[in-house]
């Protein structure tokens, strides 16, 4: 089973449980319509997101990766997003060096109350990924599946 080729691209989201996952819930409760491409992996904190997860996803088939945590100072674990910010910033700068468009990876902060903001993040990011098109060659996909 895969994403619906032609209609969707493969976008993986790592969301912290306390803020962004809640923000995505809030967006859902508010019925804020969003593109369907994004698949969400719940993590306790953006600080849990080892940049290698992003690399792993991008190398293995994702067209875009989104990491979203609590706003700085608002981390449930107080410092997690501060570490995430440094590590993910380093990664964001590194990706284009390897030939990966840095727009394929975005990290941001969305709080549990910001349903509308979440909708915008998802919509804009999905749009950006669609503008970039698929990252992996089609042949690779068929070869693997």
């Amino acid at each position, binding site marked *: 089973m895969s994403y619906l080729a032609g209609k*969707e691209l493969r976008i993986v989201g790592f969301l912290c449980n306390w803020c962004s996952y809640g923000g995505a819930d809030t967006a859902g*409760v508010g019925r804020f319509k969003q593109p369907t491409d994004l*698949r*969400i992996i719940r993590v*306790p904190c953006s600080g849990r997101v080892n940049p290698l997860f992003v690399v792993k996803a991008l190398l293995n088939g994702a067209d875009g990766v989104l990491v979203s945590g609590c706003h700085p100072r608002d981390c449930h*674990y107080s410092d997690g997003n501060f570490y995430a910010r440094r590590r993910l910033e380093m990664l964001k700068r590194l990706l284009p060096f390897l030939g990966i468009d840095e727009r394929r990876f975005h990290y941001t902060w969305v709080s549990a*109350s910001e349903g509308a903001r979440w909708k915008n993040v998802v919509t804009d990011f999905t749009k950006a990924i669609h503008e970039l098109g698929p990252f992996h060659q089609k042949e690779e996909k068929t070869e693997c599946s």
Partner: protein
Amino acid sequence: MRVGVFICHCGNNIAGTVEVAKVAEAARMMPGVAFATTYMYTCSEPGQEEIKEAIKREKLDRVVVAACSPRMHEVTFRRTVEKTGLNRYFFEMANIREHCSWIGEDKELNTNKAIEAIKLAVEKAKQNKPLFPAKFKINKRVLVIGGGVAGMQAALDCADGGLDVVLVEKSPSVGGMMARLDKTFPTVDCSICILGPKMVDVSQHEKINLYAYSEIEEIKGYVGNYQIKIRKKATYVDWSKCTGCGACIEKCPSRNAFDYFNFGVAPARAINIPFPQAIPKKAKIDAQFCRQFIKGKCGVCAKFCPVGAINYEMKDEIVTEDVGAIIVASGYGLIDLDKLPEYGGGRYPDVISGIQYERILNASGPTSGHIERPSDHAEPKTIVFVSCAGSRDKSIGIPYCSNFCCMYIAKQAILTKDHIPDSRSYVFYMDIRSPGKGYDEFTRRAQEEYGVQYIRGRVSRIYPKGKKMIVKGADTLLGTQVEIEADLVVLATAVTATTDARTLAEKLHISYDPHGFYVESHPKLRPVETNTSGVFLAGACQGPKDIPASVGQGSAAAAKVLSIFSKDTLESDPQIARVNTNICVGCRKCIGTCPFGAIEEQQLRDGRIIANVIETVCAGCGICNSTCPCGAIQLQHFTDNQLLAEVNALCLT
């Protein structure tokens, strides 16, 4: 491995935009899935029974429920699964409602997305390991932050329930905003008359330890075991000696201190007691206005104090209290008039805020309850009330309704007519919001019995002309501009979070909304809980709220604390970091990055140094996990392999 998948229709919430039957069919094809079915309401009792029966019948060892958000029902289903003897961490949830059926418009795409969400959960579940919570003892004391009506109610209810209460109040007296009010709507009963007895109860209750003029410095720990540092701000008066006689105040030569209690309606002395009914009734010095501090000489209060309580050398003091739960009732603030430049921005003395007018109306206020306008102390005859002064105003970042202004304006207009029978009051409003019991009748009374003129429209400008203030507004029902020559203008200034709300939230590790109001765990079903267990909310710190609602929340928060304290121990969350001693190379990077100091060095018998997680301290953030280069420290239930299984489920197709 035998995974069972249960797909919830959630009535039409999911089934309306997701083809659940197709989802179940796809789930059955997934490796490791032994059983998949759909159900109308999985969270219902029969729904849960269905899961239990299926576990037994199909010999399932992992369970995935695809339904709403795990933030909603993960706990429910874990309990269900556990009842069959399966470890509760063998359960996974796929969010196909909030993250899928409610936000996607295309049924085909939604269905596909739901299938993938389940695949993700199945792969994760297959990696899950049994986890077992440990038990730990609770410290059955409670900290209440804020001594307004909500905090006092919470403190009294907890204390009456037998708990030791630490009540911390930032200002020199308990009472909060309610103590400043003259009368309360819709009954028009005297505010301090109903609040006063509660204040006295707080001060006299043997179970309540009150720290007035104190602030929260630091909070450490977790539910059941918090360590609180409280800063007792220097009052420069030894409260153990002070009798509240007021001799010092009478003699104080510095007469132009800002009166915080009266919102600056009239000046105060540099040494003061905020109001006659203050609890504790003790004096304190505002150093920035005191001559002793500014000029280095004066000493008048020290000379006249009959008990020798004055101490200019006093310093802030930090005290420590250990508690098991925290109730936050830190109240609200009001926007400053300078946010409203079109209304003069505070430059015109006869344009005041509602709370200032409340003090002017109040018999124990600076005018002893005589209505007079600040500029020339004349009795105003034409009074204009402007509602939504800053509220519902996106342009200044306050899009929300301040909740109670419509009601207090009606009250103030009624009181004005009572005080000055030949006065005329006008109220500019956009909508009259009075949905409480007896509330709408009250605003009608203002118009019907007291002849208050309600004008539907906003005020664009207020400016002085001679001794009058010209209020230039619109009457949108007439479709015209209107002008009123007022003697006094009262602005119902917008309610905000307190200025230090965000700082306090960060100390508490609780969330706040973009306006600084604290976020409850669930807007309907968990209104006083926060996402940090052991921390509860009461009153307007969660959002603008009137007195009955605040009192209700105070009691509700107290009930929550009493309920968790009804047991002697709590279960710790086993979703914490654990070190694989075979792998750890002792590089210590995790130790340095842990925000909680939960990792320590440990020397093995062979002399190797490795990391060790202190179970009760670890909060489960996983920073150590993503720091560890060799993957030796793993956050249980969110291990590298579990997350990799999810990534692979999505990407390696």
